[in-house]
Each structure stands twice: as C-alpha cells, then as structure tokens.
C-alpha cells in the first residue's frame, strides 16, 4: 500500500487542542468563546475531510511526531478504518457544539468555559486514537481521553457526580493501567514492535496460552467499550451534562473503546492468528453475553439516560461481536455500526437532553403524553429508536444487516439468534416510550399546556442527526465504502 507523509493528521489532532487557551482567555465573553469552538470544530472537520479523497484512493497518510522510545514513535497513520471513525466523531462535534450551547445556556450551567475546554481536548484525543499508527500512540490518546473526560463527568460537583467520577476513573484508568499497559509491554517484548500491521504483529511470536492472556487483557483492558463486567461506569457517568453523555458516552469515548478493540483484533493479533487459534469465538461469547444482559437491564431502567446507557452497552458489543466473527461481512457490519449507531444514539441523547431542558423530567414514567407537547423532539426520538433497533428506513438497518450476514458467513447460528433476540429487546425498551408519548389518553398526560419545545439551539441539532440517520439508510456509501475498503485491506482483498 502506498503511503505519503503529511502533517495533516497532526493538525487534525491539534486543531481542537490549540483552541483551548483561546477558550480560557475568552471566559468573560461567552459568544466569542462559542464562536471559537465552532471555528475549531469546523477546521477540524475540514482537515479530516480533506484527507478523505487520498484515503479513498487507497493511500495511507503517515506522520511521525517524535521517536520517544528507541524504535517506537508517536506516529499517526490515517487508514480507511481510522478515517471512518474520525469522520464520525469530528462531524458530530459540530452538531454537539451547537447543542451544547442550547443545553448549557438553557440550564444556566456553571463553569461553562471548563466544559468547552475539556470537550475540545476530548475531541483531540478521539481523533488521535483514530489516527494512531501504533499501540503506544493509541494508549497515549486513550489515556488523554480518559483524563479529559473526568472533569466533564464530575461537572455538577455534587457528591453524586464525584462518586460517579471516582467510579469512572477507577474503571477506565484502572483497567488501562492494570491490563493494557502490561499487555502492551508483553507484546512489545515478544514482537519488538507495536506498529499495527495488516495481520497483526503478534503472529508467530507467542504460545497459545500467552495469546489468550493477551487477548483477554486487551479486550477487557479497553474498558471504555463497557463489555461486562467492566460496564458499570457508563450508567454512572450519566450524571454528566447531556451533551457529554451524547457525544462522549454514545459516540466518542465508548467508540474509542470499540475502535481500540478492533485495532487490537486486526492490528495486533491479526484475524488469521485468531482464526487459527479459534479465539474469535471467545470474544464473541463475551460480547454476546453483554448484548443480551445489557438489553435486559435496559428494560428495567426508569431513568431515560440510564436506559440509553444500557442500550449503548449492548450496542457497543454488537460492534465487538461483528469484528470477532472474523468474517468479512461481519467486520463490515461492525465498522459501519460505529457510524450508524453514533447517529442514532446521539439523536436519542439529544432528545433526552431537550426534554430535560424543556421540562426538567428525567424519568420515563413521567414522560407520558409528552409527544403532544414536543412533537418534533419525540419524532426524532422515534427515528433514533428505529435506527438503534435496526429497522428501515434508518441507517441502523444497514449495519445490522451486515452483522447478520456475517454470522451466517461465519456459521455462528448462536450469534444470529443473539442478534435477533437483542433486536426484539431493543424494540421492547424503546417503542413503549414512543407509544406512551404519543398515544396515551389525555387524562394520563402529565404535562401542562405551557410546556413547549426546547430552544432551537437544542432542537435543530437533534433534527439534523435524525435526518442524517435516515439519509444514511439511502446513502450509506461513504461509511460502507470506507468499511469495505478497510476490511479488504485487512483481509488482503
């Protein structure tokens, strides 16, 4: 594969990092501050976008920042898969920025500058993860993301938020230090490199038991993907302001986890190695277990954001499951699901936030009849639900379709049933909300007449993402194409 050297990946990472000092200095002028956020978001998106044609041509963009350990550098490599993820997260940042303004000002939150600063840092780290060329760089940005998210989780500063923050750090930082770090060093010791390779760099270097240990360490070590039993930080992190939950805990942070695991499976171990040792199934079962259990738990949650959180846990494991099937279709499904689920779930979170801004309600049992008062929001919610359940005409259908094909291709009937069963469960925990919102009898309605839609800063973004979810059903090409190219690249065409 051709490679060219260009500083663009670094610029893409730095775009949101360099804006932080400006944000800090413009604390007193919120409008200027928000304008800068937009500028940074747009610049970042444009930089990422400008690399798309190159990547689509099958060329990789490489940039070495510094060689920090002899033979091991902080290095970026933009390939199709990384590009897919970077595109999703950087485009959604723009939308979320707009939404944040509506949400934060609507609720008159404190410390808004801090909020926007750390948000920007998070995005830098996310794109950094997407463009990492080796495990060290990935680890660096992964840790950066963990730490930058902490102040956002604890934003409310009350005892509950701080407790959640502690839990968050314990899980995320704890697993990365206790699992990923040793696994990374053991791999380095075995292979002498950490550079992601097409068929992994571990092949032929270690015995099977060691590979199993490493696989377990690396899969569970990236706890951001919330595979059980390392999932409980995610519901706890829902104490954060909703835009944080939306972008970070439905898109950026959690998908960084999923992305990292995909990178591990493809770039560190290599599909062939895992196929030879029949280890894909191991990961499959872990993911399948999480899918089912998380969906079941989601059914029991009354707080909307927590239900969404458990839904996210389940959906993330779809991605892992798809990749761990180790079949081309399954992998395409998994990768596409990153994008499709992102648009669907962010819509749902935006809706939850909009409801909170407009009514202050957080619990599903209090939302009976809300559809009459906030029709736009709830329709968007419906679309988002469809996408997450995986029904046409929404993007989620496409990825789930490929996932199902993947199970057939890999001849994993059990997984097929898991997928289908979980879709039913998804429907079971989403659709009643929509039903009660629209079709309840008037006397059950819990809302005064004065309740209106949330401010436009909130509503416009959520409509936008809902529409995009539908558009992605009809035009899934950009993401599907990137995923297909990535998989072809990985499996050698």
């Amino acid at each position, binding site marked *: 594969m051709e490679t060219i050297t260009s500083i663009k990946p670094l610029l893409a990472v730095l775009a949101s990092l360099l804006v932080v000092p400006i944000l800090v200095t413009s604390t007193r002028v919120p409008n200027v501050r928000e304008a800068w956020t937009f500028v940074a978001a747009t610049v970042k998106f444009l930089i990422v976008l400008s690399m798309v044609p190159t990547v689509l041509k099958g060329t990789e963009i490489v940039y070495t920042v*510094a*060689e*920090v*350990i*002899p033979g*091991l550098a*902080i290095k970026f490599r933009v390939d199709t898969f990384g590009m897919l993820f970077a595109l999703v997260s950087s485009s959604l940042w723009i939308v979320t920025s707009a939404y944040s303004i509506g949400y934060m000002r609507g609720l008159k939150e404190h410390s808004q500058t801090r909020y926007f600063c750390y948000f920007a840092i998070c995005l830098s780290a996310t794109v950094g993860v997407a463009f990492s060329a080796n495990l*060290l760089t990935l*680890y*660096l940005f992964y*840790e*950066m993301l963990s*730490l930058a998210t*902490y*102040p956002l989780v*604890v934003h409310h*500063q009350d005892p509950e938020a*701080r407790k959640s*923050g*502690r839990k968050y*750090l*314990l899980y995320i*930082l*704890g697993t990365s*230090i*206790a699992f990923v*770090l*040793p696994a990374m*060093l*053991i791999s*380095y*010791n075995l292979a002498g490199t950490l550079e992601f390779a097409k068929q992994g760099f571990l092949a032929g270097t270690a015995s099977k038991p060691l590979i199993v240990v490493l696989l377990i360490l690396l899969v569970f070590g990236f706890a951001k993907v919330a595979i059980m039993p390392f999932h409980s930080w995610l519901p706890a992190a829902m104490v954060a302001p909703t835009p944080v939950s939306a972008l970070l805990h439905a898109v950026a942070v959690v998908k960084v986890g999923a992305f990292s695991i995909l990178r591990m499976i493809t770039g560190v171990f290599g599909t062939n190695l895992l196929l030879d040792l029949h280890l894909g199934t191991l990961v499959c079962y872990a993911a399948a277990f999480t899918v089912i259990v998380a969906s079941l738990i989601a059914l029991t949650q009354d707080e909307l954001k927590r239900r969404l959180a458990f839904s996210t846990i389940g959906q993330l494991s779809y991605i892992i499951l798809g990749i761990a099937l180790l079949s081309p279709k399954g992998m395409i499904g998994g990768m596409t699901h990153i994008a499709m689920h992102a648009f669907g779930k962010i819509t749902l979170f935006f809706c939850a936030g909009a409801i909170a801004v407009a009514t202050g309600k957080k619990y599903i049992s209090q939302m009976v009849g809300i559809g009459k008062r906030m029709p736009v929001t709830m329709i968007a919610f419906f679309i988002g639900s469809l996408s997450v359940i995986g029904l046409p005409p929404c993007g989620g259908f496409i990825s789930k379709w490929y996932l199902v094909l993947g199970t057939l291709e890999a001849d994993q009937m059990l997984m097929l049933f898991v997928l289908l069963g979980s879709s039913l469960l998804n429907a079971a925990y989403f659709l009643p909300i929509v039903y009660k919102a629209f079709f309840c009898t008037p006397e059950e309605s819990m809302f005064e007449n004065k309740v209106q839609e949330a401010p436009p800063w909130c509503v416009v973004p959520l409509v936008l993402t809902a529409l995009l979810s539908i558009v992605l059903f009809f035009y899934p090409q950009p993401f599907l194409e990137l995923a297909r190219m990535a998989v072809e690249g990985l499996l050698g065409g």
Partner: protein
Amino acid sequence: MSEQYPALLVVVPLLSALVICVAGWVNKRLCFPIAVAALGVAAYSCIGLLLRVLDEGVIVYKLGGWDPPMGIAYYVDHLNGLVLSVVSVVALLNLIASKKSIDQEFPDKIGPFYTLYVLMVTGLLGIVVTGDAFNLYVLLEIAALTGYGLLAMGEDRAPLAALNYLYMGTIGACFYLLGVGYLYIVTGSLNMVDIAKILPSLYQSKAVLGAFIILMVGVWLKMAFFPLHAWLPNAYTYAPSAASSLIAPLVTKVMIYVMIRFILTVFTPEFAFNILAVSDSIVWLAVIAIVMGAILALAERNLKKMLTYIVIAEVGYMVGGAWLGNRAGMTGAILHIVNDALMTLCVFLVAGNIVYKLKGYAFDDLKGLYRKMPFTMTAFTVGVLSMIGVPPTCGFFSKWYLILGAIRAEHWFFMGALLFSSLVNAVLFFRIIEIAFFEPFTDHHAHGHDHQPEPIDEAPLSMVVPLWIVAAALVIVGIYTSDIVTKIIQFAIPEGIL
C-alpha cells in the same frame, strides 16, 4: 576551561558556600545572588561535562595531579554525567523557587541557610562525580550533616525527626565505611576502578561478600529502602519547604546512583548478578517496598506525608529495576533517577507553594485550591500525571522500561507491584484533585461572612515560574526519552548486561 569542569562543579559551590557564610554577616541580601550564581556555574559545568562525555567518552580528572590509585581521581562517564546534570539543575531550580519561602521562614538565618543549601549540593555533586570509595564517604557525610541541619529547621517535631534521621543516617554511613574498609583490607585500594581490577580474583572471598552486604545495607539505609525507611516520612514532612524540596528529590536518587555505581563499576555486574544469587530476593524486597509504600501512602490524610511515602515506593522502583539484572531494568532505574528527581521536585515545589500561602498541607487545607492557585495546581496536575505514569510525561517512560525489564526477567510480581503502585498513585492523587478542584475553598482565618468572589491568590512569580519549568521539563524529558536512552544511558550500562 572545559577540561576543568569536573573540578569546577564541586569547587565553585564550595567556595561560594564559604563566601555566603561570610556575606550572611555582612549583608543578607547578597546571599541569594551568590548562591544562584554558584549553582548556575555548577549546572553549566555539569551539562558541559555531560556534553564532553558524549563526545569523548570517559573523562578522568586527577585531583592534585596524582595518578590514581595514589591520588583521588574522578571518573566521569555517561552515568554520572547524567546524574550530575540532573542534580545541579534540580538544585538550581529549587533554589530560585524557594527564595521567598526561605525569606519567610528564616528571616534572621538566611546566611547559614544558604550556606548549608549550597554545601549540601556540593556534597551531592561530589558523591556523584568522585571515583574514590573513601572520598565518597566524606562527601556523603557532608550531604548528610547539612541535610540534618536543613531538615531540623522545620516546625515543631522536625528536630526529633532529624535526630532519628541522624541515627539511621550515621549507621548507614558507618556501614558504608565498614564495607569500604573490608574492601580495602583485601584489595589494598580505595579507588573504585582499581578495586574493580583486583576483585575478580577475590570473588569467592568471604570478606568481599561481607563487604558487599554491609555496603548495600548502608546504602539502603541512606536511601530509605523498605524496611529501613522509618526515618524518612517524619524527617521530610516537618522540614521547611525549601529543604524538603531539595532533599526529597535528590538524596534518595543520589544514593540509588551510589548503589548502581557499586554494582556496575566496583563489584561488576558479573559478581552482583551471577556469582551472588541474591538479585531475586532483592527484587522481592523492592516489591514489598513498593506495595508497602503505596499502602502507607493511602493511609495518610496529609499531602506532604503522603508524598514521602510515595518517595519510599519510588525507591523500590529503582532498586528493583537495578537488580532485575537486565538492560531494560537498569535503563529504567537510571532513567527513573532523572524522571523521579524531576517529578518529586515538581510535587514538593507545589507543596512548598501551598505551605507558603496557606501555612498548612492537610487535605482539608486544599479545598478549592484550583480556583485559588490555578497555576500552581496546573503544574501539580502535570506532576501527578507523571507520577501515575500517563504518557507523554516522563514518568510513563521510566515505568515502561522498568516493566519491560520485569517482563524480560520474568519477574511478574515486580511488574504487578509497579502497576499496583501506579493505580494507588492514581487513587491518591485524584483524591486530592477532587478535593482541590471541586470542594469550595474555606479560609480558616476568615472574618465575617461576606461572600465575595474568591480572589485569585497565586504564589509569587518567582515560585511559579520555576515550577512551570519543571512541569514543562516533565513532558519534554518524556518526549526525548529516546535520545536520553540511546545517547546516554545505553553507554552507561556495561555491555555485559543484556
């Protein structure tokens, strides 16, 4: 002049210490500039010397013009070149940062304080640069005596803590002296290189074994290696800020250097790792040191004391790394000397700034500090990340090598201990960050109840700027790890170690 660097880096601080002592009686304001100039020259010489070593290899400097082993000679190689630079730079930065707090804490004893400070640095630099085992003892005592004095100047319990330190330190130094005596009896020499030449024929001698053990125990006592650490926490906690932020980063590190020097140069790795079958047990001791240091730190509700227990755990890192007996571990230990000196300096300077402004350092005093002292606390965050070992701060990279060494030696418990200590550090420091970031500031001495917005009350510029330099250095050193390892440390370790 560059051929005189080895002499200058010791002589200039020594002479200036004397001048400062006199100046203290004449005009107190002269003391600080002289001290800064002296340490500046020392730092310049150290770095110049390191650069020369990089060019020319080992530099031998004969004091008095006498050929070793008759006279005393310096052998400056990559190892002490590196440690010298770190020691001198840390001492200089801390001196500048501590001026205000020294003025605040000892208004009428500025002269002697600076004298002791500069003498202590002289002693530490001398320990690192010398190639003579007995000369090292004398310098050890200079560093120790001045250290007792500096530490004892602190609050309330400081003299008692310093006295305990003195007992332990004296036992340590005496053990060291005995060890050198044993070596002298069987070899007839005091020059490290000369001893190393004679020793191979004596590897089976019981006297050499006795010398080795007693020497190591002495050095461990001085570096507070668990279970010989009991003197350290109180001594460093109650010390004045300027003293604790000089001594905590440097003394233990210099003693680690001495240990490594004796392993590598005097006894040779062959003897230490292959003939004596003790490496494994020492690494086990290190494991216990790290774990106990971490656990004891968890129990503290007082910033400075907590930091002292972390120092003890870090000593375990380096001792363990050095005794893993492989290249990666040794690299990690040497790299950690550099990194840990900077990290410890960073957090202790922060503690100094806090004490300067708040007169207290219990956890309850730290509430709301991020709002009150944003610059100090930002630097603190960087230091903390380095202590936890988050890339790209330098703490990550030394931990990287240490863990790699543990993997190569297949010493899984040492790896586990390192990870455990990282986790505990994370818990410890985020507990503080949580208090400092999210709890509202409470002023114990506040009068009335008017709720005005809290004014930002940052430490003076002369304290913040060096602190930021240190914090920046943490990241820069981290990024340049590769250069440090390939250009310096690689040559500091004999080729025999794989």
